[in-house]
Each structure stands twice: as C-alpha cells, then as structure tokens.
C-alpha cells in the first residue's frame, strides 16, 4: 500500500512539474482494495483493471520502474509507450490491462475466466472497475454470462462514491451496488474497502468459491479517492468536510494504527519502510527518465500481429 501511495504521489508531482504528458487517474486513498484482493490470489491468476489502475498493476506484481517508464512514454515501458496510463498490461504477470473505456474490461475478464475454465487451468480472474461502470451494459451482460456459465471470476467494484463528478446516489436508485448480484444469481457483498484485511478475506472466500466451480461473486468495496478524478478536477462536486472525514479513514493510517496497536509495527520499522519505499520510487523515476525515448518509426509498427 505504501509503495502504491508513494508511486501515485510521485506521479502527481511529475505531472505538476510537467514531466508527464497526457492525463492520469490516481488511486490515492483506494490502495487497500487492490492490495487486499491480490493478497488472496496466486501469481498465476489473472486481473484486469479500470482507468484508475496503477495500484492494481503494482499489487499484481508489475515493477514500479517499468510502469513509470510506460507513463513517461519510454522504451522500457510495459507497452512500448503505446498504451500509457489507461492501457498498460503485463501478460507475464497475468495482468490483462488497465482500460480507458468505463466497463470495457469487464467482458474481457469474463472471457478470460471462460478460457481458464475451458482449458482447466484452475485460474481465477479479478475484474476491477469503479462504481460508474456498474451502469454500463457490459457490467450487467457480463455478470449474467458469468453466472449462467459459473465462471471463476470475482467482480471487484471500487465504489469511491463518484463517477468522475456524478455522485453514486444520483446515478443509481439503490443503496448498495452489491444488491445487483442477486439479479444475476450470484452472491454479492459490500465491504469496507479501506480495510485491507476485510478485502483480503472477502476475496479469499470468493476465490475459494470460484476454484470450487461455484461461479462468480460481486464485491462492492466502499472507498474514496483523495484526489480528483483526473489532473484537471477541482472537486467542486464534494465538500472539504466530506474529504476530511474520509481522510480519517485512510487505509494506510488504519493499517499502521492496527499494526502498531498489535505491537507488530514500531516507529523505527515504519520509518525504515518509508525510507525503502521512497528509495524504490526514486529509483523507478531515475530508471524511467534514463530509458531511451521512442523512435517515431515505432508508431506505425505493430498494428497487426505477425
């Protein structure tokens, strides 16, 4: 979680300094969801993410330095700089990609689960998306297919309460997005998405069901993004008081407090961890900035697979 937080804070700074081009969607405040979920699966399992996907990429095992190189559009990026923040994948890590189309990755994750089932690989697939995606047809169509075919897929909704600027209460007429699972005949559960252990346990239960051939699960993880939707967002649609309230529920703070209360984490260890993470992120930025820029000729190559 600390690594993701530091990575995202550094990305934010690189934008402010004009060292990253384009856009970005930071997951600061939401780290417990991908970290808890990925702690409950095997490295051979698969995951696919949303446009806000750096945290999931890192939780799935991608290297911060190559991820940073992708954001900077450099040769050592995972996707040769062609994808960037919203289109980064690493198939070697079982990471099927972040996705710039809201809800676009949901059927693809579902198809990967169909493939895993047909090939008998025993893999499960985590399909990550935000609350906004649950109003896309792909969400409803995919959950339906996964349920009728009993596919090994776990739908992880990161409900951060806002689809860009639209509050979830204006976009759906129900209290809990997890209630939608019942319509498709699968279990649904709403979790404290800022509690990494609660996420891990719920995902572990869903993984167990999936591997046993009992089909998909929908998990709604309540969380909050500390920053705006993207770098241009002034956050006029929510109050500073609401933000302050959620800052008190910061998943990192809560984990630190819990570990300290249990005596498993001391101030000294915490300081050492912070130092290690800072060094890793500094090295990632140095690696990415040292990575050669891409030659223009690459732009017209690789449209078709040979």
């Amino acid at each position: 979680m600390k690594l993701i937080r530091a990575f995202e804070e550094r990305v934010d700074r690189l934008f402010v300094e004009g060292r990253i081009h384009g856009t970005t969607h930071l997951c600061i405040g939401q780290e417990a969801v991908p970290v808890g979920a990925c702690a409950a699966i095997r490295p051979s399992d698969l995951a696919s993410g949303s446009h806000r996907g750096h945290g999931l990429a890192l939780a799935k095992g991608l290297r911060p330095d190559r991820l940073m190189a992708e954001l900077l559009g450099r040769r050592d990026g995972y996707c040769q700089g062609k994808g960037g923040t919203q289109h980064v994948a690493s198939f070697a890590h079982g990471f099927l990609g972040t996705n710039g189309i809201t809800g676009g990755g949901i059927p693809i994750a579902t198809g990967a689960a169909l493939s895993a089932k047909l090939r008998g690989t025993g893999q499960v697939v985590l399909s990550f998306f935000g609350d906004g995606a649950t109003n896309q047809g792909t969400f409803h169509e995919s959950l339906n297919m996964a349920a009728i075919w009993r596919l090994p897929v776990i739908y992880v909704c990161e409900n951060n309460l806002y689809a860009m600027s639209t509050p979830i209460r204006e976009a759906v007429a129900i209290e809990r997005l997890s209630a939608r699972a019942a319509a498709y005949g699968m279990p649904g559960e709403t979790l404290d998405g800022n509690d990494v252990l609660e996420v891990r346990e719920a995902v572990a239960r869903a993984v167990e069901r999936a591997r046993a051939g009992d089909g998909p699960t929908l998990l709604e993880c309540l969380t909050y993004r500390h920053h705006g939707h993207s770098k241009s967002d002034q956050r006029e649609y929510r109050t500073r008081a609401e933000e302050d309230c959620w800052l008190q529920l910061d998943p990192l703070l809560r984990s630190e407090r819990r570990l300290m209360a249990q005596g498993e984490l001391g101030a000294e260890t915490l300081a050492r961890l912070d130092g290690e993470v800072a060094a890793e992120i500094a090295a990632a930025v140095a690696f990415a900035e040292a990575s050669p820029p891409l030659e223009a000729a690459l732009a017209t190559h690789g449209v078709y697979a040979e």
Partner: protein
Amino acid sequence: MPQVTFADAIRAALIEEMKRDERVILLGEDIALYGGAFRVTRDLVRHFGPQRVINTPISENSFVGVAVGAALTGMRPVVEMMFMDFIALAMDQIVNHAAKLHYMYGGQARVPLVIRAPAGAGRGYGPSHSQSLEAWFVHTPGLKVVAPSTPRDAHGLLKAAIRDDNPVLFVESKLLYGVKGEVPDPDEVVPIGRAAVVREGEDVTLLAYSRMTGLAIEAASRLEGEGLDCEVLDLRTLAPLDEETVVVSVAKTRRAVIVEEDTRRGGVGAELAAVIAERAFRHLDSPVVRVACADVPIPCSPALERAVLPSVEKVAAAVKSLI
C-alpha cells in the same frame, strides 16, 4: 466435382478447423441446437459439445468482449453475429478493444478472433436486418476484413481467418448462402490480403467483392455481346487491401467501375477510388464510377429494396457511360 453451398463451405471450414485445433470455439446467439439463424452451425454442437459451441444470451457487446478475453488467453473464438446489423451493438469491444489490444499493449497481446457477419439486403428484412457495414471496420486500424464471393473462397478464407492471430471480420452475404460451387481441396487456405482477377479484359476494370462479384461477372458477360471487354477483380479482402492488383488492372484497362453493396457515402468504394486516384491517376481515361447502395436505410418492400441496390443493369449502364 461435387457442388456445395456457400453456407456448407463455411460450415465445413468450421468443422475442419475445430478438428484441427481444439482451441477453436464458437460463440453466438442460437448457434447450438438451432444451428444459427441461417443454419450455418447446424449439428456442430452434437459433434463438438456445448463447451465448444456456446449459445450466448442476447448481449452482443459483451459476448464479443468475452471472445476477446478468451482470445487473449489462449482460445481461438469464432463469433457469429446473427445479423451484421447487430454488430453496431458490439462496436466498443471490436473497435476499442479487439482491434487495438495488440498495438496498445506493445505487442504482448494477440487477439485471434473471427466475427462472422451475415450481411446484405435482398431478402426483404428491412432497415435493421439488411445492411452492409464493412466500411466501418475497414476504417479501423488493427482489423482485417474479408468478404468472399464463392464457396471455395469462403472456405479457404475462413480457414485463414481462424488461423490468423488478428481479429478478422468475415462478411457473409446472406443471398450467397444457397449459391453452389466447388471446394476442390479441404486443406486449401486462401491467403488474406489478395484479390483475384476472375475475368480478364482490356476495356474496363470492374472492382467488386462478396455478392457484388457475381453481379459484375454477369454484367461483363452481357457487355461482351456488345463488344465490351471487361476485367473483373474480386477483392476478397477489404483490409488490408490488395492495392497492387487493383492498380495493375486499372493501369491496364484505364477505366474503373466499383460495385459495392454498402451505401455509397464513405463506403469501401470511396477508399478504392482514392487508391486509384493516388496510384493510377495518370493511367485513367475516364472518371472512376461507383455503383453502390443508395444513401438510405434499406427499405423493406421488394420494389423499394430493388430500387436502392446495385443490379446487373445498373452495372452495365455504368460501364457503358464510360465508353
């Protein structure tokens, strides 16, 4: 040599490829017991079972997405879009995902996916069941678009499409399904990206694909009686286009008539005319002419439908207007 229908040639290619490669699976609406709306997949579920011939709910965008996800992870899905018109429901997964994943993930991803699309008018199905929408996909980098006109090419090109590591839109004219022809070699794989000169001639080149190739050949036969010697090119693949064969033929005949069933504005013919203008302009003796569907939704009534579609008479008249 026995004659088989266009539909049975497609079905034979599916059977052969499914036997050859267990990663090939079929997905679509009513394709299992019912055999698909045009019965192209009839009995395949009995041969290969419901694990490989998968009936989907009516969810075009997401079942194409499911096929994309399966293709990314080691399967080779062939999706049947019941009518090509319904492909509009699946545009996001085809255009924003299937077509782009190989490029945007820097070459890591491969999407060996075939989408079979029964296309075209002439059966009185009306505006939402009669369109020829191939130009949308020709316009999308990363897709291949194939549109055969004979059972032999349908068979050989479908085998090539299934073995291709890229997403391929496979256009099947509904009116061709019952047309018979020879499929001489069950192992023949017709390469994607090559046009065929199906009739040689000196005076004008007729450029056609799918069902329009037959119209062009028929028009050429009629015009022969009037002393006109037409060359007919069957494009077979629309993307990537075999520009070389087009340019060589037009440079020889110095005249080109394009015959297409899609609507005229921004259609496949517009792209062909641009290629000819860019690469064969100095050889031309007359303007390039398009015989296309009128720019209207396809009407249902037979009299109205006939009025908007290309016909042998319209092709012949277009050729004569150039001479």
